[in-house]
């Protein structure tokens, strides 16, 4: 095969693969992209019932209810709004009241959010990025909360004489 020909089919082959990959990615992105809603955004302009979204906020103290059949119901807040979440799976071990979490799922017609996954991470300095942003906007977040590194946090505990 001549050199110019060879070049042509290599280029053509590569182009086909790249176009196919781009098409796949765009198609997948448009159907699998999930937007994040803070409770304030939900209060203002709720997503359609059934649309897959992520919501997040701080778990409201005392709002966690554990039905005897399994799963859990709880409320998250960003100070500007609240979302009631129902989750039938097992909560992550790091889930607790007052902690920032992100849940993925959809709203039903009545405004109850049914989550099929809940993400939580316990770290004194950690807050899911989306939740931190939403909290900053609502004024519930104070910058100095983030600045303390772990051992300083330990020191704070020491000062209170408590380890929670």
């Amino acid at each position, binding site marked *: 095969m001549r050199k110019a020909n060879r070049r042509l089919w290599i280029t053509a082959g590569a182009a086909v693969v790249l176009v196919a990959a781009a098409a796949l990615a765009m198609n997948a992105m448009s159907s699998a992209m999930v937007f994040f809603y803070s409770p304030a955004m939900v209060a203002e302009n709720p997503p359609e019932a059934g649309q897959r979204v992520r919501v997040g906020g701080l778990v409201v103290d005392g709002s966690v209810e554990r039905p005897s059949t399994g799963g859990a119901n709880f409320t998250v807040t960003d100070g500007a709004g609240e979302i009631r979440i129902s989750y039938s799976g097992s909560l992550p071990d790091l889930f607790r009241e007052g902690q920032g979490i992100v849940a993925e799922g959809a709203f039903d017609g009545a405004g109850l959010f049914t989550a099929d996954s809940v993400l939580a991470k316990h770290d004194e300095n950690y807050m899911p990025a989306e939740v931190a942003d939403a909290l900053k906007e609502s004024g519930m977040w104070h910058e100095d909360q983030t600045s303390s590194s772990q051992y300083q946090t330990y020191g704070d505990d020491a000062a209170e*004489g*408590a380890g*929670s």
Partner: protein
Amino acid sequence: MMSVIAISALIALAAGVYVATPVARDGARVAGLVIAGLIALGAFGAYLVNGEPDLSGQPYDVLIERLRSTEPTQLTPIEQEERLRDAIRNNPEDIRALTLLGRFLARTDRELEAIGLLQRALRQGEDARIYSDLGEALVNLNEGQVTAEARRAFRRAYELDPNIPEPSFFLGSAAYAEGDRAMAATYWTDIINRLPTDDPYRAAIADRAADLLSRPTGGPGADGEAPFANAEPGDIEAMISAMVDRLEMRLDDDPGDLSGWLTLARARMMMEKPAEAREALETARSRFEGQPGKLALISALESAFAFEETDA
């Protein structure tokens, strides 16, 4: 400090010389010297940017030796906690350390760990005080609810020593939560009977018991509906008076119902009939003559009312 600098200097020099040797051997003595010098000095400079050569380390062995040799009262709470942990590490069956640490942790919101330690202490030998602490930690862990496990702990504590106030108080609370007011009143008045009059627990339990026992019961009748639910404001008055009537009838039949008397007095206070309320308390007082525990409850409720006439 000097030792850090000296050791670092030696290492830096050795490293510099090692790198420079091939160059120096090749005849470029000066270039070799420069390379060695730059590496050594550069490393030192980079170290000193953030280095703290005069800050000594604090391995745990050294720390714990210091804590052991210090008078406990001189230690901060967190140091005391570590000292207790050290004692338990050395002797996992040290009941005293287990209890002290358990109590300390329970008081600093670390009930889960506290419960483990107290249970360990109890495995060494039963003790009413420890059972009581365990029960309390369990109650705190469950946000005030006296769970079955907590009740078991309190009951055992009560069996071992009925004179400790907490088991009686919480057992009474548990009975009250289940709607058994007579049992609750028995636990509370019994412990008030046993406690010396100047014990701060005595007044605290009496106040709380008087408050709880004087509350209207769950439903006005067999229908089980909550009192005053779905009622117009005008109806409430009527319902209260109906309840008072029923109570009076019941107390005629069974004048030994302390909770009934207390509720009656409180209801009359709500209907702004202080004289009749006082009358109910006086009747109860004469009825329970010679039973200091019950009388203490009556007095506690009376002082809670702070009768307006006496103020005037």
